[in-house]
């Protein structure tokens, strides 16, 4: 009896946990891959990687693993990449903001329009 109860309880619990996202409006509205968010996050990760590379370069310079000339050359290349990424990131953010503003304005116009 206890065994049957345990199995039924596990079955019901599993069903509730699995079905919940399908039955709520919050779950249904969730996008699987939001291109704008994906792009912004990818740019942020790429920028973080450049910063990490710069930190490692500094470490190598302190350890005298690389010459001053190599350090400057690699540091400049990394800085250039970081600047490009920041620029791209800013452009993406501005575009997203423009799109959101346009959507909101459109929705506001639709609300003002008489039925």
């Amino acid at each position: 009896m206890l065994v049957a109860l345990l199995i039924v309880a596990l079955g019901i619990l599993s069903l509730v946990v699995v079905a919940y996202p399908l039955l709520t409006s919050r779950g249904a509205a969730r996008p699987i891959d939001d291109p704008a968010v994906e792009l912004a996050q990818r740019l942020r990760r790429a920028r973080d990687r450049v910063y990490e590379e710069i930190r490692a370069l500094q470490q190598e310079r302190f350890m005298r693993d690389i010459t001053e000339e190599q350090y400057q050359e690699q540091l400049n290349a990394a800085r250039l990449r970081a600047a490009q990424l920041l620029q791209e990131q800013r452009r993406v953010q501005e575009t997203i903001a423009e799109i959101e503003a346009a959507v909101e304005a459109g929705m506001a116009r639709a609300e003002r329009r008489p039925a």
Partner: protein
Amino acid sequence: MAYLGTGALLIATVLAVYGTVGGVLAVRRRDGALAVSAQRAAYMTVPAMGLAVLALVIAFIDHDFSIRYVAEHSNRAMPRIYTWVAFYAGNEGSLLFVAFALAAFAGISMAMVTRRIGSQRTYANAVLMALLTFFLIVLLTLANPFEQLAVAAVDGQGINPLLKHPGMFIHPPLIMTGLISVSVPFALAMGALLSGRIDDDWVDAGRVWGLVAWAMLGTGLLLGAWWAYTILGWGGYWAWDPVENAALMPWLGLTAFIHSIMVQKRRGMFRMWNIALINISFALGNFGVFINRGGPVPSVHSFGASTLGWVFLAFLGVTLVLSFGAFFWRMGLLKSARPLESMLSREASFLVNNLLLLAIAFITMFGVVFPLIAQLFVGRELSIARPYYDAVNGPLLLALLALMGIGPLLPWRTASWAAVRKVVVVPGAAAGAVLAVLLIAGMRGVPALVGFGVSAFVAASVLQEWARGTVARSRQARVALPIAFTQLMAANRPRYGGYVVHLAIVLLAFGIVGSSFFDLEKDVVLRTGERAALGDYEVEFVRVDTTNFADRTERVATVNVYRDGQFLTSMGAWQGFYPSFQMISTRSAIRSTPKEDLYVLFSEVQSDGQSAVFRILVNPLVWWMWLSGPVLILGTVIALWPARERAMAYVPSPARRPGDPQPGGAA
């Protein structure tokens, strides 16, 4: 308990199938709700599998001999503490353990990867659930641990005597979880391939889980060596046995992967290599499960016949074809961000490291499959023994060890020969000094000299890196050396944790070289009070005590040990006869010191009742091998310890010179 266990397995199977199908459909339909639902199905497999595990544990504790598996692997005389070992003493219990571990890894890894529901993570989850589905179907159809007997047995057969060893509480679970945990980085890589998002997103999580699997397999291998050393009674710890090799091969693949992934993380290179390496490691892990649980080749570690070989072979074939199919499908997207600039660079040393590791793995694999090939084509049972492995793998392992000393000294991108010469001066001098001391001490064997010399080189290179880093940081931040050392370790945990692991490998190599080239061995028959000499020791046979237990007859041979005529210690070499298994189990008497182990194995009492047969060995430096285990774990923990988030890096102006103080002491 049988109904509870089977019911839990059925629920887990439904959840795993839903997790697989739901995940794939969610990505194809771009349905976020379905993706979350599939994810939750994966989470729910953990309590379901936990309940099945609990049911079997309770069945063992309650001596429920109506369950076949419990009756075959325990009895009433078995101490309760061995319930956990009996759990995985046979195929069915092992597979249940593996499936539970896979469910747990899937749940934990997917919860940790990212909060974002992306197609990459959804596919990775589906891959893990597909793998779990396979194990659950095998459990329910071919190897059900909850299968009931028509008539419950009064008592069980008992646990295999060879498994009654402290190492058995951790060694098999670590090997099994290690083999199955390769599934996580594999699933992450597959998620990246299937979703077509072949950027470096999966790299961080892939590195962490690759390292987890690597550490578990490595520790499991060491514990297995310790078990073999103390219980199998041949005086060695590694026999290149098929089951040992089965765990070693994926470990080698993972070693290549966790190094190579650092290049992708740091330089955006080796993308193709890393996917191929994790595919190979996963295939080798499956091959390990096939050898372990399929039982196709005889092994000292095989504890029962199995008919599951073909199932695991088919699984290995299917996963190999699918994983490399996905690899070739997305090959065009796997281009490296940068080319290899110079063969004299850290990236290049990682590449050579990969090639050497894979060469050793495939040479070992040939040795494992050779008996199967011979059986198939020649019709005779032939096997490859230790001399093959020692002759072929020995030099490659030595080259790998040497590379471990040189690689970390090289800078990224490119290095000049002058810079290389500069950094190898200290380690080279250390190796030279060690060689000189050994030659003066009378050592002449070239392989041993090379082994010790290379070990010294690697140890010195690690210590040099620590010293240089600590001094530089101390000057830069104006702090005391101990604080500077702590800051150095904390600043780049993957790098300095890796160095600790390298030191562990040096300790291992030190022990292997010492015990392989300088061991002494003698088989003797001693009468009571008689002594035998070996090395600096004299072993005197004192007596044999016999005690009868419900499941065994124990005999303990007491010996006194002398060195230079002085009494050193008294030791007991143990032997147990288990009538129900018709098996003799031994525990050698071992006196272990950092210099050497004195190892005494009691074989039998002669027919005169007064004399006994012993094998006596002196194994130098074995102690250091066991020490390498905790050091390896420590290094892995340091490498895995999460770094604090840093928002920005401080970038000094080009005008700043080396050694100038920097704000905040950032480096």
